[in-house]
């Protein structure tokens, strides 16, 4: 994975072209039955994927600007009685989704920064500086990957309620989400692996030229690590947007709640059309991020499986 991220784009394309065959060979493709069969199957697959992948989202976008009664009575019809843009403005202003929208951005940016800070400094210390005791910490970090998140839930909540040294509770402050987000072993694993594969000759050369550990970190290692920093950033921002249970526990005041926590609470007392507009607003940024950074997302998706555990 890290090797693939390092490789420049052109080389990857050329390599694909060389081995551009799948289960069916080129001669298979020349047979009319195979050709026709495959094309039909792929066409059906495309239709199903459109219905599956984008159908529900298009419906949400449509219903966000449809009068509530139309959505309730004829959910499939497309604008039978015109549209209702007021849904969107009501959701943003009157229901106040705008506040939670900004909160979500704050949560995401803060978690992203803490995760990047912890992962890069730790990765640098463990993989580049390599003190003698590095394997111990590597092991301790790796071990946490095998502990399901649920074990942490209650003690983590109590830690945030009574944090050491600070003396007052972090509940209803963004710190309650930002700081625990930093304890992400998967990030450290990714970054450490990437740093391990950087050519050490460059570090030695920089040291000979008089660069100290801080200079080496800031001017050499970080600029060389853009690909992996991109992967960690995408995970961090998307996860902050997705998270529900933890922010729900520690952010109880609507003024600091992100969208994911607020939406379920307003459902029962909000008009359906307005609520659907709020849902549509909530998914816009992740979807735009995905469309812009599609390659990065799909390449990271293979790693995504490991995050769940």
């Amino acid at each position: 994975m890290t090797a693939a991220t390092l490789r420049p784009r052109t080389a990857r394309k050329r390599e694909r072209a060389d081995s551009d065959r799948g289960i069916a060979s080129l001669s298979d493709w020349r047979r009319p039955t195979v050709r026709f069969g495959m094309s039909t199957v792929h066409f059906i697959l495309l239709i199903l994927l459109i219905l599956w992948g984008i159908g529900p989202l298009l419906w949400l976008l449509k219903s966000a600007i449809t009068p509530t009664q139309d959505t309730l009575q004829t959910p499939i019809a497309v604008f039978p009685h015109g549209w209702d843009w007021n849904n969107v403005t009501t959701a943003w202003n009157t229901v106040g989704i705008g506040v939670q929208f900004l909160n979500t951005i704050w949560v995401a940016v803060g978690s992203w920064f803490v995760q990047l800070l912890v992962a890069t400094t730790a990765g640098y210390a463990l993989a580049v500086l390599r003190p003698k005791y590095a394997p111990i910490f590597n092991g301790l970090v790796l071990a946490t990957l095998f502990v399901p998140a649920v074990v942490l839930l209650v003690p983590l909540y109590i830690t945030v309620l009574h944090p050491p040294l600070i003396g007052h509770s972090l509940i209803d402050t963004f710190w309650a989400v930002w700081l625990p987000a930093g304890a992400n072993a998967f990030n450290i694993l990714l970054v450490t692996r990437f740093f391990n594969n950087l050519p050490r000759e460059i570090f030695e050369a920089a040291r000979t030229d008089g660069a100290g550990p801080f200079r080496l970190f800031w001017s050499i290692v970080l600029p060389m690590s853009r690909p992996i920093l991109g992967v960690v950033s995408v995970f961090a921002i998307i996860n902050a947007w997705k998270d529900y249970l933890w922010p729900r526990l520690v952010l109880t005041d609507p003024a600091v709640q992100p969208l994911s926590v607020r939406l379920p609470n307003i459902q029962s007392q909000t008009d359906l059309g307005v609520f659907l507009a709020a849902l549509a607003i909530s998914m816009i940024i992740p979807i735009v991020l995905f469309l812009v950074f599609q390659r990065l997302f799909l390449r990271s998706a293979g790693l995504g499986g490991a995050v769940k555990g």
Partner: protein
Amino acid sequence: MTTTPAQVRLSPAQRPARRRTPLTWVRGGGPATLLFLLPMLVIFGVFSWGPIVESVVMSVQHTNFVTAPTFVGLDNFVALFRDPLVPIAVRNTGYFALLALIFGYPIPLVVAVLMSEVRRARGLFSALAYLPVVVPPVVSVLLWKVFFDASSHGLFNTILSWVGIGPQPWIQSAATAMPSIVLEATWAAAGSTVIIYLAALTGVPPELYDAAEVDGAGIWQKIWHVTLPQLRPVLLVTFILQIIGTAQVFLEPFLLTFGGPANSTLTILQLIFRYAFQNSIGLDYGKATALSILLALFLALFSVVYFRLTKAWSDN
């Protein structure tokens, strides 16, 4: 991957031996190294390693923060075995995991194999399959809650009426609630499995297919004798990851049905949540951590046994 030749050459143990004094440690950059480790030590210490130890301690204590914690031995675990809700939650979670496997394990594999044969615009296929994964889970759950509208005007019921099927209760009946939840969860998660399989499929060496053709294999034989065996390691890993993930399902049943109707979708994680944060009798952190530790132990044991059993199978 982890050990490069350069790393071996420069490892500190093989540098010329020198007497280590605090002064050489400072000159060698020891304090700077510690400074770089500091963010990790603080964050992991307070928010990961500390709470892990704490959870073990709490599981043998009676803690509710009203009175001082007292040591109660295995009382919390005994209380769990007496609680009639625990077997219900275990059964529901198992049912969810089973349905999620039936819905969510074979279909992404078929889709990925078909997609790997697409020659044009494969990016479009992948993007479409992955799009639901990008939608924040709370948004997709709440959207599906609208789809699951049990009235005859509900979205799904409207579609069913086209093919002559009457309105279904979806999440409002104990019998159909869990399958409905699994349907939503599969929609939200299947895309990432497809992409994982697709990455593994592009990694299958084309020479293997060439060789199979020389031996006269047709398309189905190639799939059976080349593709699937090559995917075996990935399939084994996604299986266990899915079990670990589904055993901790929380969001979907919590937001769609809140464990109902009649506890038919109460999962283990929801029960832990109830013990710790929603208990009307008083918060019972001890019982909550005891149950989460039991779940973690079960998953660890399951993984170990699973990898032992499948070791011979995945090595060749």
